[in-house]
């Protein structure tokens, strides 16, 4: 196989994987929340209601596509894909496994190992907000624009602590490439802990996680949507598959954020204490590393769901307060201390 063919396969694989995660997540969200709330959730379509996302998709596709009369039409149409696409694209730099040997060729399980993968993720996260703002603004509805404005303010505010938390990681590993970061997390730390980012950067991890929730617009930071206040916020006026894209993009986003969290703080595809490559064949190792990565990612995806159904929502000013008055100072202090330690130890 030529390189471009391998790349194509990887791209398709990642695409399908991201889609599948998003599809299954809509199901998990509904069933898990039901279980947490002593309900049953959708269980009619297919076994355990697994086809419910499909049914929802068909419903959304067949619905009438309404564009409000007073909407800015081009921007209105542009909004949803602008939101969903960056979320998909971020998957490109996610190292979803170590490597696999197929047909005598060693294939890295990552679409592209860009040496600034890390900045790429941050940049795409920032682009995603345009989808919301443009959608909210183009709808020409007060609720939508409030949602869009909230989204802007929130995402800008939380990019900063997220960036700070990630900077400490960069300081620690001395690289921007996600793949190298994962490779640097092998082995043990202080003799008994896995050499994971979370143990070296617990504060950074918490800041990153909180910021990730805010980036993904999840409860307690779901202010741009904010069902009970802004109807559904920036996508109030959307219907049919345009709405579907927004909802879908959100779950793809969750998948990306979970994958990044795993790569940065939880050792990526590697199992703690065990080196799988020693006793597994090259093909099996590739599959196993992907499985380990996926399981870790699944845990964080579940955590997103779990937290969502436990806590209430912030208020706009409190959200800003948390971001600017708590997370950013904490992030700065953390950065400073880490820089000091790195400087002293090297």
């Amino acid at each position, binding site marked *: 196989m030529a390189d471009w063919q391998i790349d194509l396969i990887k791209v398709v694989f990642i695409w399908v994987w991201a889609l599948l995660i998003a599809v299954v997540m809509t199901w998990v969200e509904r069933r898990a929340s039901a279980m947490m709330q*002593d*309900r049953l959730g959708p269980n009619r379509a297919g076994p355990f209601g697994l086809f419910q996302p499909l049914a929802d998709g068909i419903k959304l596709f067949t619905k009438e596509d309404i564009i409000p009369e007073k909407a800015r039409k081009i921007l209105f149409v542009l909004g949803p894909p602008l939101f969903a696409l960056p979320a998909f694209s971020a998957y490109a730099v996610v190292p979803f496994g170590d490597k696999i040997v197929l047909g005598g060729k060693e294939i890295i399980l990552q679409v592209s190992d860009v040496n600034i993968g890390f900045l790429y993720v941050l940049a795409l996260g920032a682009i995603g907000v345009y989808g919301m703002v443009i959608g909210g603004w183009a709808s020409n509805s007060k609720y939508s624009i409030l949602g869009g404005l909230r989204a802007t303010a929130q995402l800008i505010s939380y990019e900063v602590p997220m960036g700070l938390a990630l900077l400490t990681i960069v300081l620690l590993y001395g690289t921007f490439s996600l793949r190298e970061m994962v490779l640097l997390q092998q082995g043990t730390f202080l003799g008994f802990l896995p050499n994971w980012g979370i143990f070296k950067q617990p504060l950074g991890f918490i800041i990153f996680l909180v910021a990730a929730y805010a980036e993904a617009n999840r409860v307690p930071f779901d202010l741009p949507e904010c069902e009970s206040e802004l109807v559904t916020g920036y996508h109030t006026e959307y219907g049919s598959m345009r709405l579907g894209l927004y909802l879908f993009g959100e779950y793809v986003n969750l998948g990306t954020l979970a994958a990044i969290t795993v790569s940065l703080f939880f050792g990526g595809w590697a199992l703690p204490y065990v080196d799988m490559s020693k006793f597994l064949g090259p093909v099996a190792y590739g599959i196993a590393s992907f499985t380990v990565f996926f399981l870790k990612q699944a845990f964080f995806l579940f955590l997103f769901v*779990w*937290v969502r159904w*436990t806590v209430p929502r912030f208020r706009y000013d409190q959200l800003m307060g948390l971001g600017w008055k708590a997370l950013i100072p904490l992030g700065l202090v953390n950065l400073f201390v880490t820089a000091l330690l790195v400087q002293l130890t090297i």
Partner: protein
Amino acid sequence: MPRRPVVKKEYTLGERVYLVEITKGLGLTWKHFVFNIKASFRKGPHTVPTCWQYPEDRREIAPIFRGAHMLMLNEKGQELCVGCGMCAKACPAKCITVKRGKRQEGEEDKYAGKTYCSTFEIDMLRCIFCGNCESACPKGALVLGPGYELAEYDMESCIYNKERLLANYNEAKAEGKLKPPQKPVPVDAPPAPKKKPAAKKGAGASAQKAKAPPKAEGKKGEDDAAKGKTEEKPAE
């Protein structure tokens, strides 16, 4: 601007850092999650204890549930309704139309009374299921039954005619969902100023219309108000 009391926020340290309480909350939802996951592996349709899988799995309806009306028959299969129209008068939504017909020769096994209702229509679109008609009925002929699936495709079908009401009765009887005979409610009646003739006609299900049998009246004066008297509802 309105005046506002000055509120001081006094948080403990545990409350101040969000994570402690959130973790506790996560533990609580996790407990529910695990419990329900375990429960959902149980056999049968009623898995999660609080959910009913509606069409297959139904709640138990109280025997005195106020659902769709039915026109009652007695044990001999005679219609009890005499077409007096008390129900129509008692109805706050004015949804009952009753027309009285005279029983003809040869119809004795069909109707219990000398008169019967030639038409009996209940407009279910207006009905508010208050049960006033049931307590107003002197014969216990109109009863709010167990039926609760009342959706129809057109408005005409929502006007229940006599056949429909009788069919409701037959259905409820076949399913064994008829109301059990009600225990008469003890009424604290003041000592009757004048002797009333003994109640010959049956009193309705509601006890304020149940007339005191004469034997109770003698004792009534002796008993104090708190103790009161049980009244027997005259049997049909």
